């Protein structure tokens, strides 16, 4: 059985937005406007993406359109990462490199080893989940590493003063940042199926897929996100070390976030 939603169904679901806005009004939170704008914006964005996706992944369309879509997604994700962590220097290029590396690794495994057939219908959503889910970890790793190196400057310079190369002097702080960035994803992976039913699986079941098939797809997606998180965070951390230290192993001046 396939589940479809009519326009009328969508309109009725707006009642749920009204519930959220109503609670805001009742509790005098002053968020009604924000809630309505958020809902309208999300709906408009989704409809636009839906229309674009229909064009990009429709049968017979060249796969290159899908690759172009993926490239645009990576670029947009990198700009979002930079906006979310303005205190991290040169984050745009590094974020682009880290999402690119994660794309090579994850899409390489999933499509190169034929876990999924390479079509627009699989490529675009898989890449979307990869980027979307590793974005938070990437920003977290970049911010945490920059904060650690700034706040523990004395300790880092004490290591440098003992003759340690910058990469070695930064290693404890890189480890701390990577652990902090990867742990939430590991916890989410552990709790999957027990505490919550993740998005891909829920979507497939709602769309009428057999639960076992939905579970298999979801497992693959979880592993994809794990690998993407690990790859993006390690690339961003190692790349940042190259930017935050000079070639002659000095730690550059790192302004506090408030200085921006």
């Amino acid at each position, binding site marked *: 059985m396939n589940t479809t939603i009519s326009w009328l169904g969508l309109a009725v679901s707006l009642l749920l937005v009204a519930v959220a806005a109503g609670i805001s009004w009742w509790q005098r939170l002053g968020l009604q406007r924000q809630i309505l704008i958020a809902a309208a914006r999300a709906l408009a964005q989704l409809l636009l993406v839906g229309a674009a996706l229909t064009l990009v992944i429709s049968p017979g369309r060249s796969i290159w359109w899908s690759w172009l879509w993926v490239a645009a997604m990576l670029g947009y994700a990198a700009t979002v990462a930079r906006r979310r962590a303005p205190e991290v220097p040169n984050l745009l290029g590094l974020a682009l490199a880290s999402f690119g590396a994660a794309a090579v690794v994850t899409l390489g495994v999933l499509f190169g080893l034929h876990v999924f057939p390479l079509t627009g219908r699989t490529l675009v959503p898989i890449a979307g989940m990869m980027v979307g889910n590793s974005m938070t970890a990437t920003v977290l790793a970049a911010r945490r590493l920059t904060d650690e190196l700034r706040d523990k400057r*004395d300790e880092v310079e004490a290591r440098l003063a003992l*003759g340690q190369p910058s990469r070695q002097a930064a290693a404890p702080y890189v480890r701390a940042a990577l652990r902090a960035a990867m742990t939430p994803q590991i916890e989410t992976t552990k709790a999957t199926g027990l505490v919550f039913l993740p998005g891909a699986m829920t979507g497939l079941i709602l769309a009428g897929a057999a639960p076992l098939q939905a579970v298999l797809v979801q497992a693959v997606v979880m592993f994809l996100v794990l690998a993407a998180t690990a790859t993006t965070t390690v690339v961003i951390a190692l790349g940042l070390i190259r930017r935050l230290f000079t070639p002659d192993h*000095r730690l550059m001046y790192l302004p506090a976030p408030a200085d921006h």
Partner: protein
Amino acid sequence: MDARRAVAFEFDRVTVVRAGRRVLDEVTASIPAAGITVVSGPSGAGKTTLLRLCNRLEVPDAGKVSYRGQPLDELDPLTLRRRVGMVFQRPTPFPGTLADNLAVAHPDASTAELSTALTRVALDPGLLGQEARTLSGGELQRMCLARTLVTGPETLLLDEPTSALDAQPKQVFETTARDLAAQGITIIWVTHDDAQAGRVADRIYHLSGGHLSGTPTEARS
């Protein structure tokens, strides 16, 4: 005689500009290799910057710094930093025991070598297995000195190392530093404490407003 006359650091019209301010302004000076050279001066005079130039934690915007006749930018910074050790104003213990801390400087050092380093700074070698952060301020600062000694430096840069210490640990640190100088280690000691400068220095330079006074005072005979 030659050893006493030898020059450790040579500053040739060295200028450092930070945020539009000339922290050091065309400083020219020779710092002898023998004994303890104190650089004194008020806060913000550029003393720490001068010291950090010596092991290339900072580089000048203009001018040249040389160590034992070689320009610093021609020396490998990692090798230089092991020859020219530094102790910072605030103790900088790393996580773990004293042995862990000392091993950062020399991972292959034997327990005997680590014990010797502690003995040289008047710390009990029995403390090797103790967590570094449980030490008192004075002990911590001497542990940092011992950690630096593990790299076998010829020169020590001390950046107000006793400014946070009480009189008794301050005196222990001063005695330790004098012993190390007597063993042939060149020491450059930055302080704003004139009384301390008088106690430990073989000669004193005064730094004020980014300018170093011309001729050092010979404090001790």
